[in-house]
Every structure is written in structure tokens, then in C-alpha cells.
């Protein structure tokens, strides 16, 4: 059986530095920061009091949700996911299914780490106050992990596979690979792939307590997130959602859809928390194997990779990640590909990071630019020993290129790597 080629035909974004594709594109080209001081985190005594959060007004949200839905909505992740998802669908030139029958050829993998954490907190408090009778009907739909894919599916009328995946910070990249494989094997014509992550102290608190977030930049939010910098001192938490419409090339061509890029392969694996891998640290061998397997799956050679969009969170692990890429791609210091991290602008959007960063990656390929690594003016000397500083752009580079590798790594020692290719009209 012949396998389908898979292309990206729609993008949607709800990022801390832009909530439309147009605004987000401008933001990443100009290095615009989406990190802001969060008074609530300060009030609660967080070590890290800055974070990345999408800016949405009521008028915008009302375009996607009914008044009844909004009356009980307390799940920021579902709001972000629905906005990004529906925008991607519209960007692809697709309409929701009619009232009577779903679109059997379209589905979604829309991931998240947890759902509706504020709603959960409200429900738990209500129950403990002996108010179980007052919960109403909206708790389950907003707190089930699959709430985001369920809301999206209902609004679009998706009749193919509808599911929510979860693999910590690899969630977003994983959702895209799952959708890619589903279409490639002929099980659907179109899949909405993406991921989301709630905002607020209850989602970010656990990371703050682990001391993995920076506490040195509470007064200067824009310089707080510093991937690959010598003064990187932990990640800045973020939130939001990214969404991509993946479609078989045949389907895209037959309806003359705009094609942003092609997904040519990828890989998912785990370090099994063996060797140097733990719950929170990656097993370097697994990372390298994941990248190599992605190249093999895509049918390209290591030297074909021109640009890397890294995971690069602004912790002490950044240098290790660079070393892993260098080994996996078998590169010398001089011929290392260009590499960048979006986290300098928006922080680490946890389960949404992979999908938001994939949207940025697709935009780079499609429009021919490499966005800047903000706050990396003082390059980590360990990284400077490994690769040529020129390959870490501090200013936007205008450049057409063909192959981009994107990786995301998550707690639990899980890895995802995707290979994206520029689409040339054939």
C-alpha cells in the first residue's frame, strides 16, 4: 500500500507574544517578548514571579464560545486550545461539519499535561465545603484530560479519531507526529494536531517548588528567559496553545489548499530513566537515538539538516542538548546547523511548548527566515566550545532553507523529534 505524503495546510496560535498567526509571525521575527510580571505569583510568594501568558480579551473569546459555555468556563487551556484549533481550521480553508453528520475524514490529536486546573480547584473546594450538589454539569468536560479535544471536536464536527495525548513537555511535538502517522497510513485525510497548557499558579507551582524556574529576573521580565546564555538560571513558565492542520498531500492538492510545509518524518522514544536518564533528566543516548531515528524515518542524511529548533529551556541542560545534537548529526564545531530556541521570547509553555514551537518552525520554513535567540548575548562558554557562535543567530536571518529538525524533551525521560521540509510546488 502506498503511503500518503503529509503537509501542513493550516496554522493557529495562542502564544504569550501573539494570538494570531500574523501577530505571532511579526513577534518572532522581531524577538518580541511575551514574558510579563505576574502580580498573583508575587502575592503567593513564588520564587519566579514572571511568566508567559497569552493576552485575550472577552470579545475575542466570545467568537469561539457560547455565552452558556463561558458562564462556567474556568479552564484557560481549553480556551487557548479551542482558539488555536479553530483558527488553524479556518486558516486551512476548512469549515465545521454540518449539523447532521460529522466529517468522517477529519480528526484531532490535541494534547495537554492536565486540564482545567482552576476548575478542578474550584470543584475540590466546593466538595470539601459539602457543596457537591452545587457543582453543576461543567466540571467533567473541563477537567477531563481530553476536554480540549472534546471541545474542539464538538465545534468542528470531527468524525475520525479524536484523542488527547500527554507526554509532558514533548506533548506538542508528539501530537503532530501521531497525526502525521495517522494520515500517512491512510486512516484520515486531515488531522488537527496541537497542544495546550493552562496558565496560573496551580500549574506553575510544582515547577517553582522544584527550583527549576529562574528567580533572578523578577524585575526585568523581558530578560528572564535566557536559553543558551551564560547567565541562564532556570526556565520561565509559560502557557498557551499551538495548532496545525495536517493533511494528505492528495487532499491538499485536490482542494487547492495553501501548503505551508511538508512533514517528512519523525521519532518518539524514551530513555527509560536508565543510564543518565531520570524522571527529570534526559538520557543522552535516548535523545541521540531519537534524532537519528527521525532522520532515518524521514529518509534524509544528517548533513541535510539546515536549521534546528531546539528544546533549550534555559537551564544547565542546554549545553547537553547541543552536545546531543552534535553527536546525533555528526557535525564539527564549524559545520553545525543554525539553531534557535523560542523560549527566550515566550518562556517554557510546558505541554504547549512543542506545538507553539512547531508553528514557529513551520513559519520559518515557509517564509524563509531564522528567528533570533533573544537574551543570548552572553553565550554559555560550554556551548561556545561545542559550536560556532555564528550558528546561534542573535538577529533575524533572512534565508530560504529546506530542512528543519524540531525536538522536544519531557519529564519522564521522553523525547520527540520531527523533520519538516519546505514545500516546493511540483
Amino acid at each position: 500500500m502506498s503511503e500518503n505524503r503529509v503537509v501542513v495546510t493550516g496554522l493557529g496560535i495562542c502564544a504569550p507574544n501573539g494570538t494570531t498567526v500574523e501577530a505571532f509571525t511579526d513577534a518572532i521575527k522581531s524577538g518580541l517578548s511575551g514574558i510579563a510580571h505576574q502580580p498573583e505569583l508575587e502575592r503567593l510568594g513564588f520564587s519566579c514571579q514572571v511568566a508567559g501568558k497569552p493576552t485575550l480579551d472577552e470579545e475575542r473569546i466570545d467568537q469561539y464560545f457560547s455565552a452558556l459555555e463561558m458562564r462556567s468556563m474556568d479552564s484557560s487551556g481549553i480556551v487557548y486550545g479551542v482558539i488555536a484549533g479553530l483558527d488553524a481550521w479556518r486558516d486551512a480553508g476548512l469549515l465545521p461539519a454540518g449539523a447532521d453528520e460529522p466529517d468522517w475524514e477529519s480528526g484531532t490529536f490535541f494534547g495537554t499535561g492536565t486540564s482545567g486546573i482552576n476548575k478542578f480547584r474550584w470543584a475540590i473546594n466546593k466538595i470539601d465545603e459539602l457543596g457537591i450538589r452545587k457543582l453543576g454539569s461543567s466540571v467533567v468536560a473541563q477537567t477531563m484530560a481530553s476536554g480540549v479535544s472534546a471541545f474542539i471536536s464538538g465545534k468542528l464536527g470531527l468524525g475520525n479519531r479524536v484523542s488527547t495525548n500527554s507526554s509532558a513537555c514533548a506533548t506538542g511535538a508528539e501530537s503532530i507526529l501521531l497525526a502525521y502517522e495517522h494520515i500517512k497510513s491512510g486512516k484520515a485525510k486531515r488531522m488537527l494536531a496541537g497542544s495546550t497548557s493552562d496558565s496560573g499558579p496551580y500549574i506553575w507551582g510544582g515547577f517553582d517548588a522544584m527550583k527549576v524556574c529562574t528567580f533572578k529576573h523578577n524585575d526585568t521580565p523581558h530578560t528572564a528567559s535566557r536559553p543558551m546564555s551564560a547567565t541562564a538560571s532556570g526556565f520561565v513558565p509559560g502557557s498557551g496553545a499551538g495548532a496545525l492542520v495536517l493533511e494528505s498531500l492528495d487532499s491538499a492538492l485536490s482542494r487547492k489548499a495553501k501548503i505551508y510545509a511538508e512533514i517528512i518524518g519523525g521519532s518518539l522514544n524514551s530513555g527509560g530513566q536508565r543510564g543518565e536518564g531520570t524522571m527529570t533528566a534526559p538520557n543522552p543516548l535516548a535523545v541521540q537515538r531519537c534524532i537519528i531515528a527521525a532522520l532515518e524515518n524521514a529518509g534524509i542524511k544528517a548533513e541535510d539538516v539546515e536549521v534546528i529548533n531546539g528544546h533549550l529551556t534555559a537551564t544547565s541542560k542546554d549545553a547537553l542538548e547541543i552536545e546531543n545534537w552534535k553527536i546525533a548529526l555528526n557535525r564539527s564545531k564549524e559545520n553545525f546547523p543554525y539553531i534557535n530556541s523560542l523560549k527566550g521570547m515566550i518562556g517554557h509553555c510546558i505541554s504547549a511548548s512543542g506545538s507553539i514551537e512547531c508553528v514557529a518552525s513551520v513559519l520559518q520554513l515557509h517564509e524563509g527566515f531564522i528567528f533570533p535567540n533573544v537574551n543570548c548575548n552572553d553565550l554559555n562558554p560550554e556551548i561556545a566550545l561545542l559550536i560556532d557562535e555564528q550558528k546561534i543567530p542573535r538577529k533575524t536571518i533572512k534565508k530560504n532553507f529546506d530542512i528543519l529538525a524540531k525536538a522536544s524533551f519531557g519529564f519522564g525521560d521522553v523525547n520527540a523529534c520531527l523533520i519538516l521540509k519546505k514545500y516546493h510546488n511540483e
Partner: protein
Amino acid sequence: MNKNDILAGLKEIITPYTEEKTALEHITEDTDFITDLKINSANLVDIVLDIEEKFDIAIDNDSMAKMLNVKATLEIIAQKQAENAG
């Protein structure tokens, strides 16, 4: 509170839960929440909570299970109000 007042209050509560505006406009005792007003059955529990708040009554599970149409709902509201008054 007479039946018409209760019905008017009920209509106000139901408004956000139904897209069937014509059926809502012509609401009578015979109107069924699900077949006529096409209300999502999961929302019936929310309507009961709104009724409890508006009419300052408590509705037990057995009564709640009967509140599928306007007639039964009006009766239960009137009955609970009478119990409160008594």
C-alpha cells in the same frame, strides 16, 4: 407567587440553555425540555441549580428526576415553596 410568575421566572432561567427561540417564546405547561427546547440533558442539572437559587428552594434528587418538562417543574417549584412557607 402564582403560576404565571413562576413560568416567567422559569423562562428566564431556560433562555441561555436553548437555541429553540420560537419554542421558548411559545412556552406552555406542555413544553418538554428535551424534545421541544432541545436542551442538552447534561444541562438539566444546571437548570435545577438555577431554579433553586432563583426561587430559594432546595430540590431533592427524586424531584429533580421528574423535572423534564414545564408542567412537572412548575408543580415541584410550587410544592417546595409551599413547604418553605409551611
